[in-house]
């Protein structure tokens, strides 16, 4: 077990070190405080390590296990899941506790747990009118030639 600690000198990133957990006691208290501070600085800086990828049903398959975001048109809503139609007109299951009330279109950010379902973390009502064709096109661009702008 180890963790990577990013060290900052005068605010500028200079190097990262590997800290073994079991050897943490070898460090003096100020050193540990510095390491903790370095970690905090790193976390406070831009975190691009856990992006939510734009997906439709087709691209969801490529991101199983990762954080994704998508929009579905609600077809059926139970207490703990929503069955919806993706922007590319396939069926998707969103697990979690949807907000009440739920609008026709809802954006979900969560983990893709299978090729057809998402474990939701965040729900956002996107209203009753949404241009799903444009959303789907942006989704294709974000997974195609312009992927590097997103992930």
């Amino acid at each position: 077990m180890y963790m990577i600690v990013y060290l900052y000198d005068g605010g500028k990133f200079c190097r990262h070190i590997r800290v073994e957990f079991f050897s943490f006691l070898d460090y003096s208290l100020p050193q540990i405080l510095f390491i903790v501070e370095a970690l905090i600085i790193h976390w406070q800086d831009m975190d691009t390590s856990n992006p939510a990828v734009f997906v439709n049903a087709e691209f969801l398959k490529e991101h199983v296990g990762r954080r994704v975001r998508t929009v579905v048109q609600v077809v059926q809503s139970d207490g703990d899941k929503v069955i919806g139609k993706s922007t590319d007109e396939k069926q998707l299951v969103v697990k979690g506790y949807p907000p009440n009330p739920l609008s026709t279109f809802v954006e979900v950010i969560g983990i893709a747990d299978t090729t057809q379902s998402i474990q939701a973390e965040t729900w956002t009502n996107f209203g009753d009118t949404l241009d799903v064709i444009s959303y789907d096109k942006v989704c294709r661009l974000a997974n195609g030639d312009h992927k590097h702008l997103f992930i």
Partner: protein
Amino acid sequence: MYGGNNQFDGNAAFAGGGFMPSQATQTASDHSFSPAKNRDSQTLIPLTVKQISEAFQSSDDKTNFLIDGVDVNNVKLVGILFNKAERVTDVSFVVDDGTGRLDCFRWVNEAVDTKEMEAVTNGMYVRVHGHLKGFHGKKQLMAYSVRPVDDYNEIASHFADVIYVHSYNSRLRKQQDSSFMSAQVPNSAFNTPLKGYQASASNQFPGYSMDGIRGVDKMVLDYLQQPSSLAREKGVHRNELAQQLKVPSEKILEAIESLESEGLVYSTIDEFHYKSTANG
């Protein structure tokens, strides 16, 4: 090693500028560019946090970020706001646009600032306009407009914008590179026969861009560029052009005048005979 301890001291962190007026004057005096260039660098550029995190920071610590070869000062983000914290002189928050997270600050000097910041809460989709700033190697956004997104089409639209601006700026850069290249070897295109001319048409005259030559102008130029026309010492008579191209002679005259002013054709033994300058 402990020099970093002070950097989260609130006073130190925010005394270093960020009030928009002083930033603006600083930017203006920092750059010794022409006014046009300076204005260009102050346009509002739609970006993702991922692009900002990878932005290349040139020279000093405060300004001058380069993205796709373009100076970036003012940026537009659309994402979810959270960690909103109100303090005496400013409101700090984080924007997560799905590609990453960026620290933002909004100075609250006037009632309108306070009001705008009261309208947004954690978890809400917002559109943020602000000035991108480097501070101790970190990037921050000094926001001057934070508004809730009420039409959710704006999210897809923003990312389409991001892609468009990225493509536009990277293509612009590529074009500049290629015109620079062709300026290095200006003669190679002239010495090659017809086929070579066509293939390199777009690069041949970096300043003029052959794309701009259309219609009759293009027909006349193409005719004069033919090897048989180039081989004739006297060039081609205007009447011949009119007959061969089946275009009224006034149009031919107009085309020739325009091509002549571009330096692409010249008159030979009299004002009726013309040749292409591509012959050397």
